[in-house]
Every structure is written in C-alpha cells, then in structure tokens.
C-alpha cells in the first residue's frame, strides 16, 4: 500500500467531470467560492447565493429534501431523492453539459449522470480557502498552510538534500588499509545454543549494578537504535579525541570531567567487540549521576526518566562542543536530538469564532495515556490474565475491539480534538475575550526513531496514592504514523479536502516515509515501586530478551503478549531487515 502522506491521492474523475473541466476550466468552481458559507467555528461548508437563501427544487419546489443539488453550469437547484425521483438527474439528461452539480448543504460535487459524488482539486481548494477565512485573524488573510497566529511555522524544517542509498563494500585497497590498521574482532561465543553465524553482533548482557535494570533496559534499546549505533560505530564521537580535547581545556569545572557521549562510545565498542561476557556500565552510571545530580532525584528509578535525562546529558556535552544552540526539531545540535527529536503541533480553536492558535514544540518522545477502563477490569493481575483471555476469545467471533487498548488507539486519543474544560478557557485573539476552546495535537515532524512511553500509573486523589496500571496494550510490529501527522489531522478537520496541508509539501519533497518498524520494547513487571525492567530486541527478525546479564532468544508471542512500557520504532527506510549474510559480511571485512 503506498504511503498516504498527503491527500495527494486524487481519484480518477468520471468522464462527465473530466469533460466539464476541460470545457470550462476551473472558473466555475472559483466562482462558487463566493457562495460558500461556513458556519463557524470550523463548521461545514454550504452553498448559498444569498446568506439566508432557502434552496428549493426547481421542479417540485421542495426544500426539505436531504439532498439538494445546484447545477454548477446554470445554478438551478434540484432535488435528488432516490429511489423516488431525481430531478437533478432529469436536468442533467435534458441539458448536455449540465451533469455536474454541487450539494448545497455539504459543498460536495455530484455527477448527476453517474449519480455519484465526485471530487476535484480546484473545487476543494476553493472550499478550504473559504473555510480558512473564518478561522484566521481579521487582519491577515493567511491560509491554512501557514496557520499562523501565536505560533510560527518552524523555519528549521528546511529541505535536506537527499542522497540515494547505495550499497557499499570496501575494495581490495580499502580492505588492505582496514587490515593493516585495525584489530580483527572475534566472536567469543563458546558452546552457544545458537550457531555463531546466526548470533547478531552487539548482543551482550549488561550487569545489574544494584537496582539498575531501569538503566540497562534503556541502554539495550539504545545500543540497537540503528542511527545511534551507526553514529557511534562510525566513530563520530571518538572518546579519546574528546577526552584529549577536554583535558586540554580543563579548568576544574565539572563539565570537563565526564562525557556521556564518550561513555556511550566506550559501551558501543565493548558491546560490539565480540566479547559476550556481560558488560558493566559502571562508568556510564557514574557519569550519569554527575549529570543528573541536580535534576529530579536519582532515587526515582524510572526508565523513561532515565532515557530523557541521558539524552539531555549527551546533548549538553555534544551541543556545547559543536557550539550549537538548542535547535529543536532539526537535531542539528547533537546526535540525541538528530535521532529522537520530532515536532509536535498544538492547535487551540475558539469555539465561538473558529480562530485557531497554533504552537510548535519539540519532543524527544511521546507519552501516551492509557485509555480509561473500557469494561474489562482494570485491576488485571496475573491471576486474572486467563479470564481476560477468555473474554477476548468470546469477542473474537464478533471481531470487535473488546476494550483492549492498542497503541494506535492511544495515538488516536492523543490526536483527538479535546474540549478544554470551562475552567480552562483560552483567550481568543479575535474575540478578545476568554472562550471555550478545542485543543488538538498532531505530529508536525516525525523523528528518525519514535519512542512511545505509556503512562502506566494512575493517581487517585481520593486515596492519595498511585498505582500502576497493568492493563495490556496491543502494539504492532509495523506502524504507519500518517494518520497522526499534522497534515492528516488538519485535512480531516477541513473535511478531508484535496489540499496540501501543513507538512504536506515538506514531506512530499523529502519523501519522508511515515512507516515505522518496531525494534525494541522495554517492559516493566511488578508494582509501581517494586518491579523489574526487561528489554526485548528485534535483530535479524529474531526477538531477544535482554534481562540484565541474561540474553535469551524468545518467540515473538512473548513480545506480543508483553506489557509494553516504552516502545521504540525506527523509520522503515532505516530498518535493516533480516540478512542471513550479516555475520558473514563482517568476516569478509576482517579478512
């Protein structure tokens, strides 16, 4: 299925529409623009010559039909009431060239000869423009593609020059250079249960240093995050060089004493060295504690918090070195942002006048709320898991969702238009007064790697305690993020018209795919403050369980059934699928 990034999928026009456009161009549709009336806020577009005109069928004088169509050629209105009669079709038959009409209440084109709704880009553009006028400031006639009010279009989304991917292998001269200047790696696996040619490189246990499974689980995911792995294995942050540089400028300040990026570099080298004995990320812990000393207390052993904190730590060092200011969204500042940073768009629409205020914010991940209890008991424990499975079995027949939370469902909720409470009235610039508003989130720019964090805690203000929500969340191995993009969300807000919305041109130029592949899942078992983290990694299309020092291969069912806390997805074009020759290719390089 082709990627549905933008609504550029334009259905083939029927021969009558084709003929109509050929003979008349887009003039008739633009002329209609003056007759498009939109009830704010963000309401449905209707066609009326006069604002309070009541359209009536020219043949039977009825005005209460559910479908009244105005002929685009002569503006005569007719009803269409199958199976009784269709005065609209009668008109089309009697006057050639008058087949195309427009639904007066819905601003949709209709071919009276084909008796079907048809679609035209120019007409849709006219409707969108009309709808936009009502939702922007009275001073500027800015279009939907800018949607400017308080927020400004992120200007750091400049086009990146695309380079075509090509397979590369060293030639004999390069091979000689590699041989002479490097130390060959050996897979030190002895007596493994899986033949050594199958074992992926970079798979190595991490020792638990004392309640550090929260750190180990995230590190395992990061060690196999393709763009991050490539960065460090390509020596883009050389720890010797970095230390040397910092040593030279040592001025006693704390910052020069540790570098999380250097520790990551050391970890990548160690983990991909071929040595399979568990690695102790002690230096990393030490550095992180130096970095996180002033942040929220290290006593909070939450994997997600660690993830954000260490990315920040890498950013601080690397961005400082490069002397880059924090440039959210582009990731020009450091590798952490280059990999994980995306941009979220937030729209707040005044419900009185339709004026929309837009802001853009960078994000390193997306935290999702679990849907509230959907009928299946939220207090699922191990004991009840069998029961919940039976409930599913019963429901399977009717192929319904049955209240099982899904990642897509959470994303839908995340991007849903939400009415802000009456206690949260937003100040509308157009109305100049606080009004009830509608808020909607969407993703303006997708990161290379999307990390989804599931908020698995419930806080009860009544009992003044929190508990963990163990409810199962279904997550797919492949995920298409297109429906959650700003362009898609905006498009649906404007009735799914064929029109380039915020982000469409950007995405079209870059041909950025919205398809993602799952490669790591961090799971948590246990209670809110007593539990254990484990990471599942997907390498060469096999799943491996990384439980601190213990790496085992597991069936994908285990992963599908696991309680996901953080899920890592990488853009499909960066995802390296199974390659039987993976191990062999490393051998070739060494020889």
């Amino acid at each position: 299925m082709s990627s549905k990034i933008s609504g550029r999928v334009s259905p083939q026009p029927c021969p009558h529409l084709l003929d109509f456009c050929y003979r008349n161009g887009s003039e008739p549709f633009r002329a209609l623009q003056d007759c498009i009336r939109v009830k704010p806020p963000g309401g449905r577009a209707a066609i009326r010559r006069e604002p309070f005109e009541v359209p009536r069928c020219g043949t039977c004088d009825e005005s209460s039909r559910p479908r009244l169509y105005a002929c685009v050629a002569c503006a005569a209105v007719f009803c269409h009431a199958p199976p009784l009669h269709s005065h609209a079709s009668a008109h089309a038959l009697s006057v050639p060239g008058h087949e195309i009409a427009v639904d007066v209440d819905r601003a949709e084109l209709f071919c009276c000869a084909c008796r079907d709704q048809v679609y035209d880009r120019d007409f849709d553009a006219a409707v969108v423009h009309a709808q936009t006028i009502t939702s922007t400031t009275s001073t500027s006639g800015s279009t939907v593609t800018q949607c400017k009010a308080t927020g400004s279009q992120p200007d750091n989304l400049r086009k990146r020059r695309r380079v075509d991917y090509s397979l590369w292998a060293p030639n004999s001269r390069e091979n000689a250079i590699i041989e002479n200047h490097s130390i060959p790696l050996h897979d030190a696996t002895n007596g493994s249960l899986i033949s050594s040619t199958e074992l992926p490189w970079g798979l190595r246990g991490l020792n638990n240093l004392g309640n550090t499974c929260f750190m180990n689980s995230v590190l395992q995911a990061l060690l196999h995050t393709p763009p991050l792995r490539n960065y460090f294995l390509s020596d883009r942050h050389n720890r010797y060089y970095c230390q040397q540089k910092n040593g030279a400028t040592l001025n006693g300040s704390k910052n020069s004493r540790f570098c999380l990026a250097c520790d990551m570099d050391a970890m990548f080298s160690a983990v991909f060295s071929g040595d399979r004995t568990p690695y102790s990320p002690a230096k990393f812990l030490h550095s992180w504690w130096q970095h996180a000393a002033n942040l929220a207390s290290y006593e909070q052993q939450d994997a997600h918090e660690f993830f954000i904190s260490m990315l920040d730590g890498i950013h601080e060092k690397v961005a400082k070195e490069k002397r880059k200011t924090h440039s959210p969204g582009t990731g020009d500042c450091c590798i952490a942002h280059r990999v994980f940073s995306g941009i979220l768009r937030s729209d707040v629409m005044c419900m009185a006048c339709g004026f929309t205020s837009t802001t853009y914010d960078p994000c390193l991940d997306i935290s999702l709320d679990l849907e509230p209890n959907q009928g299946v008991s939220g207090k699922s424990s191990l004991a009840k898991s069998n029961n919940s499975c039976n409930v599913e079995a019963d429901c399977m027949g009717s192929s319904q969702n049955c209240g099982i939370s899904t990642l897509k469902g959470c994303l839908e909720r995340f991007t849903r238009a939400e009415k802000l409470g009456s206690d949260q009235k937003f100040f509308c610039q157009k109305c100049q007064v606080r009004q009830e508003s509608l808020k909607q989130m969407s993703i303006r720019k997708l990161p290379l790697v999307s990390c989804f964090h599931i908020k698995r805690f419930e806080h009860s203000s009544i009992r003044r305690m929190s508990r963990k929500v163990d409810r199962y969340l279904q997550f797919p191995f492949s995920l298409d993020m297109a429906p959650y993009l700003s362009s898609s969300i905006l498009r649906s807000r404007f009735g799914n018209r064929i029109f380039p919305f915020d982000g469409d041109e950007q995405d079209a130029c870059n041909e950025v795919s919205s398809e993602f592949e799952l490669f790591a899942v961090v799971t948590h078992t246990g209670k809110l403050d007593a539990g254990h983290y484990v990471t599942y990694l997907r390498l060469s299309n096999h799943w491996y369980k990384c439980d601190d020092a213990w790496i085992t291969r597991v069936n994908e069912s285990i992963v599908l059934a696991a309680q996901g806390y953080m899920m890592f997805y990488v853009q499909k074009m960066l995802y390296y699928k199974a390659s039987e020759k993976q191990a062999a290719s490393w051998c070739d390089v060494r020889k």
Partner: protein
Amino acid sequence: MSGPNEDNNTQLSSHIFGDLLDSIIVDVASECHRIAKLGLDRNLEEEEEEMRLSAQARARVADPSNSSETNTKYVVDIFGQTHPSVATEIFECMNCGRSIAAGRFAPHLEKCMGKGRKARLKVTRSSTAAQNRYSRGSPVSTYSPYSNSTSTNRLSNGTPSVAGEEYSNGTYEEPWNKT
C-alpha cells in the same frame, strides 16, 4: 387529550425529526464516501489480523503447559553462559579507587559520591567503618531497597520501601532509617 392540533404537531415534529435524521445520515455517507475514494480509510483487515495475533500470543503465554519463558534468570543464555544472581565482576570504583563487585557498585557509588541521604549524614565516618561496609557478605538481592522512591509517577525497580526496613543482607553497619 389529543385533538386535531395535537395530532398535527406530533406529525409535524416527527416529520421534522425524520428530515433531520435523513440529513445527518447523508452527512455521514458523504464523508465516508470521500474518505474511501481518497484512500484515507483505515485498513481494518490489517488491524483485525493484528488483534487476532496478539490475542493468540497472549493465550499461548498464559497457557501454563507452555514452557515458562518468564524466568530467564539462572538459565543458560544464548552464548552458553550462566551468571550469578548478583554480578561478581570486580572493577575499580572510579571515584575512590576501591575494588567493588559489579552487583554492589551502585549502592557503593551512591555513598562514595555522597549522594545518598545516609552518606551525607555520615560525612565524619572513619575509614575503618567504611572498610567494613564494603566487606563481602551474603549477596545483596538485586531488588533490595537502597533508596526510597517518593515519586508517585514513576515505575521504580526497587522493592517497596517500608519505614524502617533494613538492607536485606545486613552487611551494613546500620539500617537505613527513614528520616
């Protein structure tokens, strides 16, 4: 009592209701038609298939007759290795230079760096007392609490801190009192 006027009104109102309902139905039909024609609709078959696979997987995992893969500790890993429950690799603490066992590095480092509350209170402790603290005793359970989590929104991986609970292996000289 229903007179002719009442009948008229009832008829009229149900007529109006019928019109409104028809109009709404056409609204939905028109929207769905557009979504389908523009290829914006969801792939329901794919989603159903995903749900089916996940239900199957959960059933398989919940089935006690399947070998439990839940406990992978104390087993042989894919490289043919076994590991003790508490990591025994020894290395030097980068803060104080002492040799520490990996599995107890974090609690050591915490005090070594003066991070824990206890550590800050023990600023004047003698070095011999410190030596005793780091002596090898029974292995420390990986989940014993060495700090209490006061956060309400985080999933920690330590066991719950109960007031006055001691370090489980008793190697330390004093219990971790909660202040």
